[in-house]
C-alpha cells in the first residue's frame, strides 16, 4: 500500500546542519508535516519533499542553501502556495524552503515611494501599509489576500489593474537574491538604472529557478483622485469582445477591462449578487485620473460599448456600488463551486483583436468535448481564463476536461498568443513549452539558468522541459485547502 511505503529521508547530517541554522522548529521532517507541502494550488501535481525548512532572514536562507548545495540537494522556494502552475511543486529528492515566516515589512519610505519587504509579506499587506497615506501597490492578483510578494516576484504576477499600471516587473526596483550556492546578490535598490546587466528584469518572472528572493524593494504610487467604473451587458461574448477591441483601438487605456460570460455571471450572481445587468456577457471597465480625464475616458468607453451593441450600460454611483461590481469579479473563480463540482483554470493570452473569434472557438471546442466552459478574464490585455467545468465522479470527464483545456491553449497559440499570461509555466505547462519555443530558444534560456545555477539545484523540473519529465498531460484542478476555506480565489 502506498501509505506504508517508506518515503525518502533527508540525510541525518544535513538535517542536523539545517537545524543548526533555523532551529529545530524551522525544519519539518515528519511525513505528515512534509505532506502538507506536497502541492501548491495546482493540486493535481503532488510530490512529498525530503523536508521543509522555514528560515526567517536572508542570512538563514543563505546558510540553508549553502548546506543544501554542499550536499547537492535541490530546493524549491515557496510562498503562500497559491500558484496555479505547480511552480512550488517539490521534487522527491529535494527540500522545500518555505518563506512564510519572512513576513516583515522592513521599511515604508514614502518620500522615495518605496516599500521594502521580506518575501512572505502578502500582496495586500503592502497596499495596506501605504493606504493611509494615499498610496497603493498596483499589481493586484485576485489571491492578493494570501499570495505573497515572493511568489508575485517569481511569477511576475498581474491582476485586473495591470492593464494600465503594469505587472510586477514594473513595480520592483530592487531585490536581494540568494543564489543556489548560498551567495547573496543585491540587484537594484531604491534608485532606478543600476549599473551593469539588468538581471533584475529576468529574475522577476523566473519562477524560483534562478535563486531565492529574500528582500524586495517595491514601488508604490499615489492613489488617483477620481475613479469611474462602468458595467455593460452584451448579447454575446463576441459582441463584448468587439467592444474591448473598439475601446483599445479608440486609444483609451482603462486601468482595468474585465469580462465575464453568462456561465460565470450565473455563478457569481448566485454567490455574491453583484447585480450585473442581464446579458450573455458583461464587461467591467474602470478609468481613473483627474475628474475631467475620468469623464472623458468614461464617455469613450461608453460609446464604444454602445456601438458594439451593449444592451445596458451602467456607471457605479459610488464606492459602495463599485465594490459590489468588483466583488462579482473577485469571487468569480470561487463561485464556480456553485455550478460545478470541479474545474480547471486555463491561462492563455491572445492578441486583443482576436477576442471575438477565440471566444467562439472556445464555445465550439466545449461543445465538441461535451463540457461547459466559463470565461472570466482580463479582456483588456487579452489574457483569457477559461474555466473548464467538470465532475470528477463522471467517468472520463476529467480526461476530457484536460484535453479541452489543452485545445483551448492551442487555439490561443494558433492566433499568435502565449502559453501563460500570469500563472507561469511551472510544472503544469512544462511540456507545452516546445509549442511556443524551439530548441534554440530553449537552449538560450537554459544558458541563463546555468549561469545563475550551474548545478541545477534551484527549483529543478520547472519552466524548461526535460526529456525525462515530458510526455504527461496538463494538470487538472482540485480545490486547494486555502481556497476551500474561502481565503483565496483564482484569477
Amino acid at each position, binding site marked *: 500500500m502506498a501509505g506504508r511505503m517508506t518515503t525518502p529521508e533527508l540525510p541525518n547530517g544535513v538535517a542536523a546542519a539545517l537545524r543548526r541554522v533555523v532551529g529545530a522548529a524551522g525544519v519539518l521532517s515528519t511525513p505528515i508535516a512534509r505532506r502538507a507541502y506536497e502541492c501548491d494550488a495546482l493540486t493535481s501535481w503532488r510530490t512529498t519533499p525530503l523536508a521543509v525548512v522555514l528560515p526567517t532572514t536572508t542570512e538563514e536562507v543563505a546558510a540553508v542553501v549553502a548546506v543544501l548545495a554542499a550536499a547537492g540537494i535541490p530546493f524549491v522556494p515557496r510562498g503562500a502556495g497559491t500558484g496555479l502552475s505547480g511552480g512550488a511543486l517539490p521534487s522527491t529528492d529535494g527540500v522545500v524552503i518555505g518563506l512564510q515566516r519572512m513576513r516583515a515589512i522592513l521599511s515604508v519610505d514614502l518620500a*522615495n515611494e*518605496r516599500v521594502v519587504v521580506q518575501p512572505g509579506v502578502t500582496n495586500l499587506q503592502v497596499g495596506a501599509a501605504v493606504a493611509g497615506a494615499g498610496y497603493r501597490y498596483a499589481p493586484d492578483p485576485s489571491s492578493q489576500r494570501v499570495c505573497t510578494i515572493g511568489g508575485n516576484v517569481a511569477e511576475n504576477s498581474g491582476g485586473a489593474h495591470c492593464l494600465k499600471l503594469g505587472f510586477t516587473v514594473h513595480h520592483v526596483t530592487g531585490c536581494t537574491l540568494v543564489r543556489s550556492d548560498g551567495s547573496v546578490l543585491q540587484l537594484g535598490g531604491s534608485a532606478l538604472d543600476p549599473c551593469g546587466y539588468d538581471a533584475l528584469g529576468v529574475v522577476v518572472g523566473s519562477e524560483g529557478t534562478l535563486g531565492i528572493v529574500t528582500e524586495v524593494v517595491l514601488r508604490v504610487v499615489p492613489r488617483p483622485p477620481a475613479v469611474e467604473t462602468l458595467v455593460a451587458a452584451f448579447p454575446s461574448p463576441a459582441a463584448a469582445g468587439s467592444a474591448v477591441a473598439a475601446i483599445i*483601438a479608440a486609444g483609451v487605456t482603462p486601468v482595468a477591462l474585465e469580462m465575464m460570460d453568462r456561465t460565470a455571471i450565473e455563478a457569481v450572481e448566485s454567490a455574491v449578487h453583484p447585480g450585473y445587468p442581464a446579458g450573455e456577457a458583461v464587461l467591467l471597465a474602470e478609468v481613473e485620473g*483627474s475628474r475631467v480625464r475620468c469623464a472623458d475616458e468614461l464617455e469613450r468607453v461608453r460609446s464604444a460599448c454602445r456601438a458594439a451593441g451593449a444592451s445596458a450600460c451602467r456607471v457605479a454611483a459610488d464606492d459602495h456600488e463599485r465594490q459590489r461590481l468588483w466583488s462579482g469579479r473577485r469571487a468569480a473563480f470561487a463561485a464556480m463551486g456553485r455550478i460545478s463540482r470541479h474545474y480547471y483554470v486555463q491561462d492563455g493570452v491572445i492578441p486583443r483583436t482576436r477576442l471575438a473569434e477565440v471566444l467562439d472557438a472556445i464555445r465550439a471546442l466545449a461543445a465538441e468535448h461535451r463540457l461547459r466552459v466559463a470565461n472570466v478574464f482580463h479582456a483588456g490585455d487579452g489574457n483569457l481564463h477559461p474555466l473548464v467545468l467538470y465532475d470528477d465522479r463522471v467517468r472520463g470527464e476529467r480526461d476530457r476536461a484536460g484535453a479541452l483545456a489543452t485545445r483551448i491553449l492551442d487555439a490561443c497559440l494558433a492566433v499568435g498568443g502565449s502559453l501563460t499570461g500570469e500563472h507561469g509555466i511551472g510544472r503544469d505547462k512544462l511540456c507545452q513549452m516546445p509549442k511556443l519555443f524551439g530548441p534554440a530558444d530553449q537552449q538560450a534560456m537554459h544558458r541563463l539558468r546555468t549561469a545563475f545555477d550551474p548545478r541545477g539545484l534551484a527549483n529543478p523540473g520547472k519552466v524548461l522541459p526535460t526529456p525525462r519529465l515530458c510526455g504527461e498531460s496538463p494538470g487538472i484542478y482540485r480545490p486547494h485547502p486555502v481556497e476551500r476555506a474561502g481565503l483565496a480565489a483564482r484569477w
Partner: protein
Amino acid sequence: MIGPDGARALRRLAGAGAVRAAGPADSVAGRVPAYVVRPPAVDALAAVLAAANDRDWAVVPRGAGTRMDWGAPPARCDVVLETRALRRVLAHVPGDHVAVVEAGVRAPELDERLRAGGGPPQRLMLDPRGAQRSTLGGAAAAAAAGPGRHRYGTWRDVLLGARFVLADGTVARAGGTVVKNVAGYDLGRLLLGSRGTLAVLVELAVKLHPLPEARATVVVEGVEPGDLVSLGAGLRRSAADVTAAELLWPEGQLVLRVEGSPAVASAEAADLARETGGRLAPPPVADQLWSRVSRRPWDGPGAIVQVAVPLAEVGQLARAVAGLRGRAALGLGLGTGGVRLEAAAEPLAELRTTVERLGGSCRALRVPPELAVAAESRPSPAALRLAAELRAAYDPRSTLSPGRLGWGLP
C-alpha cells in the same frame, strides 16, 4: 587579424556588397576594425557571427552608430557588424497596439508604417536623444530612454519579445507578440542596456501607445534645489497625469507635460500650473523647451554621465551638479538624469561619490576611457561575478564587444 582568407569568408557569408574595409570613421572608441559587414538578412548575420566566433575575431555590433562613444572601448575589434540592412517592419496590428520590427529600423521608418496602418495614430513612446537617427535595436541595447519615461517607462515597459543572435550564431527568441506574457525567461529584458555584449538583437516586438490628441506644456521658472523634493512629491500627487517632468539645470526650469484630449490636456495643464506656480507654455515655446531637454546634457564638450538617485535626493543631486558647474536634465519624478561635466577626474569622481552617498549610482556614457573608473559606479563583487558568468554562458570566447562593459569584464 583577418587575412585574405577571412575576408573571402566574410564576402561569401554576407555577400560581396555587404563587406567593406573599415576606415578611421569606423573606430569604436579608438579601436579601428578591419572590416565593416552589413549582412542583408538575419541568417547571413548569424553566419558571419558564427564564423567570427570560430576564428576568434572580435565583433562589435552597430546600429546607426549614434552611441558608439558610450561604454568602455572594446579590448579588441576586428569586425563591426551592422544591423542597418535589417530594416523591415514585420508586423503591425493597429488594434493590438503591437508592432514587430527588425533591429535596424529607425523610429521615423516605424512611424511611417504605423501611419499607413490607419486608425487613430499610435507610436512607440520612447523618446531618447537622437531617436530620429538611432536604430531601435541599438537604442534597446543601450537602454536609451527620454523624458517620456516618466509616464511610458523604458524599454523594459515596451519590449514584448525579442529575437537575437548569440556569439556562436545561434538564432533564438524570447517573449512574444502579446502585451501580457510570462512564458519562459524574458531574455529580451536581459539584453536591454547590455551594450552588445551578450547577443545581437535582430528583431523586436514592441508595445505601442495611442498618440495623444493634444499635449500641453507647463514651465516653472526659477526652481532652486531646495524646492525640488516638494515639487516632485506634489507632481506625483497631482490629479494631472504628468507624462514628462524634467529639470533643466542650471537654468532652474522645470518643464512638465500633460496629454489627452484637447479638453483634458488643457484642464490638467491649468491645474498643474496653479499647483506648481508655473505657467502654460505656448506651442513654440514648448517646442523649444523640449528640444532643449532632449539636447541636454548631450550638446557641448565634456563628459556625460547618467545618474540615478532615490526620489527624495533629487535636490541634493541638483546641489551637487551646481557645485560642480555641471549642466543637467534631471527627471524629477524618477530621480534619473544626464549630467555633463568637465572631463577631468576630480569633478567626475566627486559627482560619483555624492550620488553613491545619496543611495544612487552613476553610469559613464560619453566619458574618456581613462576617466571611466572615476566616473562610473562599480557594481558589487557579487554582481560582477554574475556578469562574468552571464558573459561566459552566452559568449564564452568573448567574441561580442569584449571589454565594452568595463570593470575588467571579458
